[in-house]
């Protein structure tokens, strides 16, 4: 399924420059605990300019968007409690939706907001995943008018980029 312009936020504790990549999904930024990498910030990194800290970016996001704040508070913090080194990817497709997607959104009378939450775990973690599913349900209850999808995928030693690409392609 073709994706057009969207916003994709990658949360990971050990993000490297090569993980803040662009693809057909038009990833705009990646966030680590220490560094934020966006299209702009990637350029900053390349030019050794000062980059924003993780907390600054979170602060920006959360003041601009209550939904992000809730995702962060309800999901990410709960995951941090249960999983070491979580790799979390949140995609928000606010896009000029074409063809089938546009029709679908009209059908659901959506405001063309689509949130995809992709959690990349190193391996299966039932306790943490149960917590995630519970928090996800709370998120859906709070935002019944949004299309919020959740995928939990496992790395099993693979590069996150590889399964993110594949996962989003199949979604």
């Amino acid at each position: 399924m073709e994706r057009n312009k969207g916003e994709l936020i990658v949360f990971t504790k050990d993000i490297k420059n090569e993980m803040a990549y662009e693809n057909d999904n038009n990833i705009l930024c990646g966030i680590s605990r220490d560094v934020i990498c966006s299209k702009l910030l990637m350029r900053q990194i390349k030019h050794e300019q000062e980059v924003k800290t993780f907390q600054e970016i979170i602060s920006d996001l959360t003041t601009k968007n209550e939904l992000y704040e809730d995702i962060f508070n309800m999901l990410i913090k709960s995951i941090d409690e249960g999983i070491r080194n979580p790799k979390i990817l949140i995609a928000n497709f606010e896009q000029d939706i074409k063809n089938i997607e546009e029709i679908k959104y009209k059908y659901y009378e959506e405001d063309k907001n689509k949130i995809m939450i992709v959690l990349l775990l190193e391996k299966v973690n039932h306790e943490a995943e149960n917590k995630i599913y519970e928090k996800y349900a709370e998120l859906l209850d709070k935002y019944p008018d949004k299309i919020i999808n959740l995928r939990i995928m496992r790395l099993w030693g693979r590069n996150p980029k590889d399964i993110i690409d594949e996962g989003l392609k199949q979604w």
Partner: protein
Amino acid sequence: MVAARLPYIQKFVDQSNHNYNFLCDIDKDRYLDWVITASFYTVLHIVNAHAAARNHPFKKIFDYESIHTQRIAYVRSNLRDKYTDFIRLINESFNARYDALYFQNYDGDINEFLKIAEDFRKIAI
């Protein structure tokens, strides 16, 4: 009128039973991905039957995902205590079908998926 819809409802029950029988027949150690997939499709048709019995059919209007989204919303509203299991099964079946490393690497307990399928089969249609 439920009676008029009985054949329609029954076809979902039959399909669920068919998938469950397949689930029971396969080698669960060897075909973990199909265990999860068959569990999911056992459950999916139970949900379809439950919805059909309440005159809430899922409409294939645009694409697969639209039905999928309708079904998730239905489970959230009408089978609330099963919702988390349903979401888990959707997620895992998706991974099982599309992640080439899944059946070799899955390190969870597959009996969990059998139990979810069996729990759904106990739902009064």
